[in-house]
């Protein structure tokens, strides 16, 4: 009896939270629990399979799953609706399903998704404020606020004077959870160089007219009777092959570039301090123009955070934060309990690329967060 009463109390608090989101103008939605598996696999990669509950239509090919999150279902429903492309704001509360070693596979998440807002800085700040409302709703008055902005690293890489293969590699390494700063030591364009049998050809092609070289390699592959093998065209193969010749012997990241990246990744503090440091770095690296758009947005967001009543000194910004979250494109944040370490209570950010990946012809701005109800339920308070 007591357990049941506690469960109801938990539900009541979650309901109260979502009601407050509804009052703030976020329409409550309840997407189906059974979802096509494809979008999740496509966006998160094969690795998510071991955490998903998969099933299939009897006799059919299409795979379905119990929704492992609500962001993708809410986004898909929005795209399929008449409101697609227009500003729209949603909130949700419901079970999600993930195979986890040490916790129940079914658990509750609440959250918000906001689509199509052009005032990105204001929208970002509003998300953080609404996230803080969730922790306050459970009696945690001062959650730790960690923020990041993955657009800054993207801006930095774009501004660096590096061959495209290097830029791809750096962005990818940033998106992985391993320590990039440490990786930089070992970072080489693995395999792209140091291949003895082609070294001579690559060196010979390096100085030649790119168009002619491309035609030569394409011809050679055609002579060998190769047209399109394994879905890659001969042109694609030739292009990347020649890209390697352009890299020449530079298997190591240039020292000064490495220095800039390391300095960038060491920047942290409250948003105002960090912004000043980033401005200096951009000026020193001659990248002011390239980094300006991302930095302007960053500073504007900091202003909106203050306007939301979030004391800047409470906010911990780090350039390196946000790594490991593949689909975020800008602002990222996590709220944690200062008295505990580990898992976030609320987590979210901006994912402007998501709706395009889900099939939207036009890019649609998107930002949101999810609330781990089960992690908040341990708190006794309420309001």
């Amino acid at each position, binding site marked *: 009896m007591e357990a049941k009463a506690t469960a109801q109390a938990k539900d009541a608090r979650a309901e109260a939270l979502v009601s407050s989101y509804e009052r703030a103008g976020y329409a409550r939605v309840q997407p189906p629990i059974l979802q096509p598996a494809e979008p999740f*696999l*496509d966006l998160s*990669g*094969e*690795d998510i*399979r*071991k955490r998903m509950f998969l099933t299939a239509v009897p006799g059919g090919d299409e795979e379905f799953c119990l929704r492992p999150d609500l962001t993708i279902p809410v986004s898909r429903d929005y795209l399929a609706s008449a409101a697609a492309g227009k500003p729209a704001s949603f909130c949700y509360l419901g079970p999600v399903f993930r195979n986890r070693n040490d916790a129940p596979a079914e658990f509750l998440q609440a959250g918000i998704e906001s689509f199509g807002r052009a005032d990105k800085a204001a929208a970002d700040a509003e998300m953080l404020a609404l996230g803080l409302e969730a922790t306050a709703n459970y009696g945690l008055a001062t959650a730790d606020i960690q923020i990041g902005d993955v657009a800054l690293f993207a801006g930095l890489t774009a501004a660096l004077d590096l061959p495209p*293969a290097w830029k*791809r*590699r750096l962005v*990818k390494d940033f998106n*992985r959870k391993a320590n990039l700063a440490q990786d930089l030591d070992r970072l080489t*364009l*693995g*395999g*792209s160089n140091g*291949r003895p049998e*082609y070294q001579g050809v690559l060196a010979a092609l390096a100085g030649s007219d790119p168009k002619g070289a491309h035609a030569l390699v394409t011809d050679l*592959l055609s002579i*060998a009777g*190769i047209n399109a*093998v*394994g*879905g*890659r065209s*001969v042109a*694609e*193969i030739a292009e*990347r*092959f020649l*890209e*390697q010749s352009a890299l020449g012997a530079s298997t190591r990241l240039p020292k000064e570039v490495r220095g800039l990246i390391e300095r960038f990744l060491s920047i942290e503090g409250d948003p105002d301090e960090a912004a000043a440091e980033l401005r200096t770095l951009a000026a020193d690296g001659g990248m002011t123009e390239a980094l300006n758009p991302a930095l302007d947005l960053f500073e504007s967001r900091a202003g909106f955070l203050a306007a939301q009543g979030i004391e800047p000194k409470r906010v911990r910004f780090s350039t390196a934060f946000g790594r490991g979250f*593949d689909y975020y494109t800008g602002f990222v944040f996590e709220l944690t309990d200062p008295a505990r370490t580990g898992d976030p209570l609320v987590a979210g950010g901006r994912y402007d690329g998501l709706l395009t990946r889900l099939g939207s012809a036009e890019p649609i701005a998107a930002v949101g967060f999810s609330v781990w109800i089960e992690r908040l339920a341990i708190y006794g308070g309420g309001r």
Partner: protein
Amino acid sequence: MSAPLVLAVPAKGRLQENAEAFFARSGLSLIKPRGARDYRGAVAGLDGIEVAYLSASEITTQLAQGAVHLGITGEDLVREQIPDADNRVVLIDGLGFGFANVVVAVPQAWIDVRTMADIDDVATAFRHHHDRKMRVATKYINLTRDFFARQGVVDYRIVESSGATEGAPAAGTAEMIVDITTTGTTLAANALKIVDDGIVLRSQANLVAARTATWTAEQRETARVILDRITAQQRARSFREVRARFAACDARLVAAVRERFSVETPFGEPTSSGMLTLHCPPAQVYALTTFLRENGAEAVAVADLDYVFSKDNPLYAKLEAKL
């Protein structure tokens, strides 16, 4: 009568022949008392064992469930089919047959691809160019997923393939494959090449024990006897017996011989008459005989060994530690 120990053996093909030969060498001949078509058998002269003839894949499943005690199957199947394999089964020993590698292979035409780092880069570029992910055909879904995750390759999809995987790139159903190969001939015939650091697993037939099976005292004892015989046979195969008798043979000389030729002295120091028995790795035998003769031996006899039984039973110790 108490429940027998169940030993699962591959039911057909080369794997069955090799497995039967392996047990026969250890003096354990598998028999089918009720005729050759029977799928249940026994071991001649050894009570308390039931032999179950199953497919290698089925053996793996039954080991994972603890439905059989011991079985012979490929490590590739163990790693692919059993989640958290090390907590459910013990790979007691590699048996020296059924060698095959699970590898990542791409079309030979991909002259820009040599390593997994290349694949990582190509996979990301592919998604941008073609607006879909690169497809990997394989029957090793779990092995592929874990290996690609370790290598940091994210932009790919697995296409499940139950046969003729190596044909998938040419047929246009996948861009690359993860498959098992022994010599690489089939891959080459399909214009595929192995990625330099794309060895997912070096596999061979293994004797595997189920940790979750019921292990009674009798069944443990039967397993101990089987493993004792296997160990004795393996030890015998890795040595030749070298015997000599000469006056100059003393403890100091034996110490030198142990050091130089990695020999073992199963019966200790030379006897008072200078009689010495050594167990020597086959590759070292001739050098050892030369050395002994240079130090005074008139004649040195070398013989093959059938069994070397010893006090310890490392294979059983390995099993027992995990039960």
